[in-house]
């Protein structure tokens, strides 16, 4: 089973790359942009076929390693 994890900075946590990209887009004339956020996508291929079990395994992976929940949020998408 394919599982996709999307990791973003929590609201209010400075996203320096997003900020720089926003400035660069502004300087190209895209003045309507209000915010740019960067996210990390991690694609996992699991042997597990039960989606509930896969969900709970990946949640545990996120909590233990994939995300730093002090500053990051994660979303799990089962394919």
């Amino acid at each position, binding site marked *: 089973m394919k599982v996709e994890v999307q990791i973003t900075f929590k609201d209010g*946590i*400075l996203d*320096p*790359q997003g900020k720089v990209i926003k400035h660069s887009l502004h300087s190209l004339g895209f003045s309507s942009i209000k915010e740019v956020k960067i996210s990390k996508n991690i694609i996992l291929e699991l042997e597990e076929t039960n989606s509930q079990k896969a969900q709970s395994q990946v949640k545990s992976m996120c909590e*233990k*390693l*994939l995300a*730093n929940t*002090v*500053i990051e949020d994660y979303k799990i998408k089962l394919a």
Partner: protein
Amino acid sequence: MKVAVLQFLCTNCEYDTQYAFEKLGAKVQIVWHQNTNLPQNTQLLVIAGGFSYGDCLRSGAIAKVSPIMKAVVNFAQQGGLILGICNGFQILLEAGLLPGAMRHNDSLRFISKPSTLKIINNNNIFLKLFNPNDTVRIPCAHAEGNYYINKTGLSSLKKNNQILLTYCNEQGQEINFNGSVQSIAGICNAKRNIFGLMPHPERAMDKFCVSCDGIKMLQGFLSK
């Protein structure tokens, strides 16, 4: 004193750290990350700077799941003294042994220059040779030293006097060095046996360095 210095893949300050502590008369052993035990009778464990695992995922994230880390956590729980410098500090945060997290520097730049630091609290073994408000000059070299902690965490740090060092100018006024909350450069845990800082005291040990202020910092662990 017996000092153990951890060595992960891409650690690069272990020999400087060894040199610094040996200069102060300590016995130093470098410990490879695949080991599952610390050397017997280790009195101080130093997690040296560098870019463990090439900062893959997040700085310190992969190191925290290395085989040696179980022994590190045990050592910490038994009250063992731990000092994390730069990447070592990041590893301690990732491992949950110190509160908070590191973000990329707000300038997006890798900052490699001397920093002036203010001693905020000296009621701990690390900074006991200083007085509050003393300043020291210590080199910094990091891309992710922008310390973050939420409001609740910050009040708890303040309440327990866990903020040890802040970035300041030569007059001792706090400055924004890398974006850190309250200009924090170094903290300790509530039990005051685990210390983390971004600047490198082991690089301020000789006349040819920026300063010799690192000696007085590391000496804290060795003197009674």
